[in-house]
């Protein structure tokens, strides 16, 4: 039960990261986790167990869409891509995150 509470806090953040990783091109699930690790220079390692529920949730909300395709090693894989609504959501969330994190920074560095 505790893991679920933790997830709730990080859920929004994970969603944002996933959307970002899909910005350039469609990627499959494993690829998304690799990309996030790459982009964060190995700092953020997505817990695989929470990746797929997040993907399904994002698809339910209509921000990403999925399609079956062929992966780089010729295996059948499900590729996810951003929808138009997803792109707008990503911009929104990025702005909000910037505002929030700068506010927190100010608080932490105040004397």
């Amino acid at each position, binding site marked *: 039960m505790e893991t679920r509470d933790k997830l709730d806090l990080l859920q929004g953040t994970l969603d944002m990261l996933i959307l970002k990783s899909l910005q350039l091109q469609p990627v499959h699930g494993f690829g998304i986790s690799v990309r996030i690790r790459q982009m964060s220079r190995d700092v953020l390692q997505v817990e*695989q167990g929470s990746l797929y529920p997040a993907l399904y949730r994002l698809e339910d909300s209509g921000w990403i869409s999925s399609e079956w395709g062929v992966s780089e090693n010729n295996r059948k894989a499900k590729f996810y891509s951003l929808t138009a609504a997803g792109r707008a959501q990503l911009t929104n969330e990025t702005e909000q995150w910037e505002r929030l994190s700068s506010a927190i920074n100010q608080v932490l560095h105040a004397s």
Partner: protein
Amino acid sequence: MHPDPRSTGFSLPPMKRFTRRIRALFGRSKAEQEMTEELALHLEMLEDANRKLGMGEEEARRQARRQFGHLEGVKEELRDRFCFSWIEALHRDCSYAIRGLSKNRGFTFVAVGTLALGIGASSAIFSLVETFLLRPLPYFASGELVTLSCSNPGIDQATVGISVPEFEDLRDRSGLFSELSIVWPTNCNLTGTESPQRIEAMAVSPSFFRLLGANAARGRVFGSEEEKIPGWAPGVVLSHRAWVKYFGSDENIVGRQARFDYDPGVVIGVMPEGFRHPGRTLSDQVDMWYTGGMRDPPFGATPTRNRRLVPLLIGRLAPGLSIQDAQARLAVFAAKLRDDYSNDYPKANRWTPRIEALQSHLTGEVRPVLWLLFASVALVFLICCATLANLLLVRASGRRQEISLRLALGATRATIVRQLCVESLLISLCGGAFGLMLASWLPVCIVRLVPEELPQVNELAVNGSLLFFTITVACFTGLFVGLVPALQASRLDLVTGLKAGGRSGGSDSSSGRLRACFASVQVALSLVLLTGSGLLLKSFWNVLQIDPGFSAKNVVLSRIWLPPPVRPDTPQQYNNGANRIIFARNAVARMSQIPGVKYAAIANGQCVPLSGDGSLSQVRLEGETSPDGAQRMALASNVSPDYFATLGIPVLQGRPFTDADQGDTRTILVDQAAADRFWKTRDVLGKRIATGSADKPQWWTVVGVVGNVKSGGLDIPDSAHVYFPIFQRTDRGLTILVKTEGDPALVMGALQGVIRSIDLDLPIYGLKRLDELVSQSLAQRRFAVVILAAFATVSLLLSILGLYGVLSLSTAHRTCELGLRIALGAHKWNIYRIVMQQGLLIVVAGVSVGLGVTLLFAQTLRGFLYETKVTDFATLSATVFLLSGAAMLASWLPARRAARIDPLVALRGE
């Protein structure tokens, strides 16, 4: 802290998620397959990555799995996204329950059977109650329909007729009714068809059908043409049944002519098949309605207020008027009438008109019986529920190992409870289905026993509300009755439950206590039912013991009506009193000559025992100067000399009538009740009574005293009864009474022939044996006794079985302990005592609660009892003994089994 992304931006409306789930429900396996593929691929890629890092095959795979996390958990969570998990769970529970129930056929059979009985009986009674008491009558806006009757409570006259001026005042000047109609049940002779028939006729006002909102199926109903006719209109309306039965479904019925009591009439309409007259008739359904302007005989061209002929009115209240308001305003209006016309309303009479809703008027006599039925069936139903609860507890206690296992494997308590509830719901729905079948034919049987003619009998059918009621009851039973055992069963100590001895042994005490509780409840409820039926039985017995005052053996009765044609151009034969007397003498003489006839008599008025309507006539005693209004009331009959011999009524003093009592002699006989009430001395022969109006009295001399006869019903107290000789006052409605030597069936056929030989056009009707009449008068009481006794027997059986079950099971659970006791030297009787003490406790608890409930609700039964106290000691003690005795027997059998336990076998374990 961080705003929920789902609440901003453009998220899919919930509908789309819902439809995705619905779609997935049908493409279930495909979605599952895709998910598995996707996750498998991810795992493979993790493996590959690990291998690239230098791990071996096995190591790579293991690490991949560890990195991924809990695979099954993820799958579960994903599955939640694309299916209704609760539907899945329900489906699973259902199929599991079905499998379990079909393996335990015995249990399922008993459980379903018990519920079928309980639900079926309840639904049957509900069907009756709904049809007759709750459903609105089949007329337009029937809530506004009322009846109006009048009484003179000041002189104990329960019903007094209504005169034409009173009717017109009520209709036009009271402002209470939008429509008002007279309703006057009569019967008449129908001639001009194949054979003369006696038919039920109803005199109504021209607005009657408009009042009910009913239209004819053929032709038309009464309308404005009939309002202009001063006397009886020639146009009549037939019922569907009369059209088929007497006119042979003649297609040209509209306009066909016939004679009604010798008056020519013409048929103007036929009512539709389901239409029934809303009210009591003389003996059968109404065949014909007729109407008129009430300005001709029998009302007279200028009707007087004093001539009160119409027995009842039906009306539709003015819009928006409630019955209470109408009654209050009616009381005010009546007071005004009494003041305006004080000559016609003597103060001592206290003339009161009364309004009653038509629905309660019609069902008045059936209502208490139906509510009694309802209460009894509710008790039976509760007992069935308790039985089911016990059965479920027993079953659950046998599955303790299984339940403990499931709890240990991670099922929540709610899951277990849900599964058990689904099982009990299935049982109750099954029971409900069978119960519905029972409920579809049981009401029809019951209605045949209820001796009342009700206009809604046609409507008794399996309909929507019955289905709804049955399903609701079944569902509630399943859920609530199943809940308690389920809650109890899921509260387990896992350790003891999983042990090998998990099927029996030790900590069953809470389940056992609950079972004993339910058994006590059953015993208590059975006591209530048994006591109720015991009291009714005692009343019935008391009523049977009443001496009716006459002998019904081998007596046949039949009726004749000597018709009074109204029109001057039709033959007036029986309008002449002398002709009627000649007819009567002729009839008696010829009937006495039929072979096999011992006595023959002819009579009218209140002359048929047990079926009088209680209407009293006014008489005055000689030497009693009564102030205005205080007259003596008595039942009056006109009888022929052999009347008392025919009915076996003893002549206590003086002599019966002879043929000499005619002309100016004016002799009468009185019964013992009249003698006691009027004169208080023993010596009444020679006393005189006057009839007629105060200024022109006719004096009659008492020449004999006869025994009391129950005139209204067996349980109605005696009224004073005065007998006049028929050959001095012969009315039109005559009753023929014939006592035969042997079986009356032989004579019954000959009677019509005899009457035809005197007059070809006279039908006889209402031919029946007098002992049938006696039996019918007891019909309602007998019905209540039979039904309640049936319910009580069923409940007794169920509670005895329940008790037996509880004790059997508890003994089985205690096999170890009892075996130990026996091994240590306990005597057989000690074992008996142990087991039966348990039974005794249950019985004592049940009986005390039952007695308490009985005494609490006993008063409601009072209306059904005759000369039996509600707390009748004999009945109460008899029921307690009966129940305790049966219960002790039920506990003796398990005790016997317990005493026979072989200690070696018991101690070794089961």
